[in-house]
């Protein structure tokens, strides 16, 4: 770890900020959000940004046994001595790792116990859509996209005392202080200069194998496809696209700076990026042997997207129908019919791709056993095409995760399916899935934890702390997941795992009492969410606003607007 290509060292620079992704190095180094902040702070502010990741349990045990405190990779100085410790919080299953890192660093777990010498601990990222499960451990949260406010945060850290620093941070738009009296919901910040700001051009390149090992160029932020289950689709609105010239120039610079020979054009839905064909063609032409990859394909446009791939790149493709029947997909606003699915599958196998992975969810609102059985039926149809076209040379796999309702989505008030129902539906899938299709089911107990924390209210931080004290950490890793710790902590809190954590309080029929709304204004209006929930019940489609009329989600206005290439 450490010693990467493009590492920045700024000895003596102040303030000293440590950026952390609360997972193992191999996972965290691949996170594009942290790379953005690392480049932004180091190259465009006087501050120094360093990094620390969560040591795996065997290393953590050794560090505790030998009294070694968590250090930053750039300076090898203790993390505890920095001015600001910023965490990117990707999902609920990383929460106990935050406590693990605070403890390993020797920083008091609770914000209330921190003194003048301790860093300000700040959280950001998509999981702060509901910050309550971590409220006790953070001094501040940043709600939304921080790029436009980083300079103000750096400036606030120059205040002479801890109280003054927190006071100045409170004045920065998007900052929510969980321990400040009478603070209302904070509006999610949108980086309005996104399309005029180049992507990361000098990313850190790990010397050890990482989860993602390639140049990552963010071509677009936001997605307005309107899938009703998708938190990212609501959280990152509106759509903003970067010009193709900027994308290609950034790719050229990043390739030269990294030594990579692969570029991934990322966004929530890269096939919807208006300049995708031109960007792929021009990046490939930069030098021989450059490969371009897209993280996901839309089923309704897969055939044309796949045609652009060079023969040597034809490996595996993932398609995400999400649900097994047309009616349930309509409820989700996932406008894919069986004909489009069949065309996409044919395109995959006719195009010479050697693998197809289908991604589904179970536990969706109003889901029936017939909906669940639709998944093996679609897999069987795809398997027939594989046999017919690829003649047994292609692999087919199906991945099924358990749906967890998330805040600030049209399904935010829907009940979680629960352990018994999910276990029964997983068994149904195992029985009905064609034998030659590889079935992969998401770890159920992890989903229960996710469901408990995703909509946790005030007091749910006690549950996180109790679980961590009982040994929970790396909850997203099946081999490290400690079911007994979580069940014990939930029982002590009087909960069944899967029920939303925290002090019990009614959410109200329209979600007016939902705890996440007391902390976060995601800019998506409650009226829009309610209307979308009603339309889901009626199986009514909502158009993508980039293709038609405004759907009045409430995000645009006051300088925030959709920016799509002409």
């Amino acid at each position: 770890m450490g010693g990467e290509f493009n590492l920045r060292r700024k000895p003596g620079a102040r303030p000293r900020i440590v950026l952390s992704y609360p997972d193992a190095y191999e996972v965290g180094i691949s996170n594009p959000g942290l790379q953005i902040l690392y480049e932004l702070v180091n190259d465009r502010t006087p501050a120094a940004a360093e990094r620390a990741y969560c040591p795996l349990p065997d290393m953590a045990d050794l560090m505790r046994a030998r009294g070694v405190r968590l250090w930053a990779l750039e300076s090898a100085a203790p993390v505890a001595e920095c001015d600001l410790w910023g965490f990117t919080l990707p999902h609920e299953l990383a929460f106990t790792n935050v406590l693990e890192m605070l403890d390993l660093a020797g920083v008091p777990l609770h914000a209330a116990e921190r003194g003048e010498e301790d860093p300000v601990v700040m959280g950001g990222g998509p999981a702060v859509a509901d910050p309550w499960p971590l409220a006790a451990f953070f001094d501040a949260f940043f709600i939304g996209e921080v790029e436009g406010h980083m300079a103000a945060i750096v400036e606030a850290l120059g205040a002479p005392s801890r109280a003054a620093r927190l006071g100045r941070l409170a004045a920065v738009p998007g900052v929510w202080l969980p321990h400040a009296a009478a603070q209302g919901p904070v509006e999610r910040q949108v980086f309005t200069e996104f399309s005029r700001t180049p992507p990361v051009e000098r990313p850190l390149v790990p010397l050890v194998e990482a989860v993602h090992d390639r140049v990552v160029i963010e071509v677009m932020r936001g997605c307005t496809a309107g899938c009703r289950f998708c938190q990212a689709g609501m959280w990152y609105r509106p759509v903003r696209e970067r010009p193709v010239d900027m994308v290609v120039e950034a790719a050229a610079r990043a390739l030269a700076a990294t030594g990579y020979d692969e570029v991934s054009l990322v966004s929530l839905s890269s096939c919807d990026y208006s300049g995708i064909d031109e960007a792929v063609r021009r990046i490939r032409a930069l030098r021989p042997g450059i490969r371009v990859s897209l993280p996901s394909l839309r089923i309704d446009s897969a055939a044309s997207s796949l045609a652009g791939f060079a023969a040597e790149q034809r490996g595996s493709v993932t398609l995400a129908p999400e649900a097994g029947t047309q009616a349930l997909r309509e409820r989700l606003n996932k406008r894919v019919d069986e004909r489009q699915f069949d065309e996409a599958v044919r395109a995959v196998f006719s195009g010479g791709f050697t693998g197809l992975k289908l991604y589904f969810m179970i536990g969706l609102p109003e889901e029936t056993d017939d909906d669940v059985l639709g998944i093996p039926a679609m897999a069987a149809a795809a398997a027939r095409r594989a046999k017919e076209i690829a003649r047994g040379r292609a692999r087919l796999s199906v991945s099924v995760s358990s749906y967890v309702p998330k805040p600030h989505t049209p399904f935010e008030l829907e009940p979680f399916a629960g352990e018994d129902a999910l276990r029964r539906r997983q068994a149904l899938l195992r029985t009905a899935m064609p034998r030659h299709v590889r079935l992969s089911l998401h770890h159920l107990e992890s989903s229960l934890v996710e469901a408990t924390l995703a909509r946790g209210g005030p007091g749910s931080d006690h549950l996180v702390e109790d679980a961590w004290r009982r040994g929970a950490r790396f909850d997203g890793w099946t081999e490290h997941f400690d079911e007994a710790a979580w069940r014990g902590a939930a029982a002590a809190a009087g909960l069944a795992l899967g029920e939303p954590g925290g002090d019990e309080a009614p959410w109200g029929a329209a979600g007016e009492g939902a705890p996440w709304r007391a902390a976060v204004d995601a800019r998506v209006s409650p009226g829009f969410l309610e209307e979308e929930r009603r339309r889901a019940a009626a199986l009514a489609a909502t158009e993508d606003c980039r293709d038609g009329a405004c759907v009045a989600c409430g995000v645009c206005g006051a300088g925030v607007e959709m920016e799509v290439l002409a």
Partner: protein
Amino acid sequence: MRTWLVSFARRGPARYLSHLDTLRAVQRTFARAGVPLELSEGMRPKPRLSLPLPLPVGAAAEDELAVARVGDSAPEARRGLAALRAAAPAGLEVSALRESPRRVRPQPLRARYRCEVRGDAAAVAAAARGIEEGGPAHVVRRGPKGTKTVDLRESVGDVSCRALPGGARLEFEVRYDAGAAARPQEVVEFIADTAGIEPVLHRLRRVEVVFAEKGRARRAPERRSTAT
């Protein structure tokens, strides 16, 4: 055909890289320097780049060798050296570059290692002498394909021991042209077992490697060499 013989040191956090990670870091250094590597032929072309003697994880090294076949558009050696130096990550320090107009396949003949152990220096010295002067020094190597017994005396020689506060510095040579070569960790474990000390080595460093190039020996200097 142009072959580059690149000498480099591995220090700091880079000493914890595996052989494959080191190889990948050197490959990326070439790419960042804008030096095209020749590719192998076949379905999945790979850059023609090799590190003839893998380094153990955790070992620093003073003078390692990378052998690369470079494309015709590669710069001349002096400019290539400067570009590689500028492009290398912290911990991989490029010290010299020699170009050969023919295909070169250096074979490692012997390497010299230095490390430190904690414990009674006199016992360590006696155990170290035992490798050269005693009976067979067998270690058992266990792998996925079964076990294999290696006699350290066949490949380890010139063992010396110097007392340090709380321990000792060991230095030994491993020959690579005499069958199964000993691994540095195996040498230390054998000595530790004989001396009754903890089998933990500190500051392992490969200080010198001698290669043969088509029958001609190339002795790498112990210290960082200057540009050629």
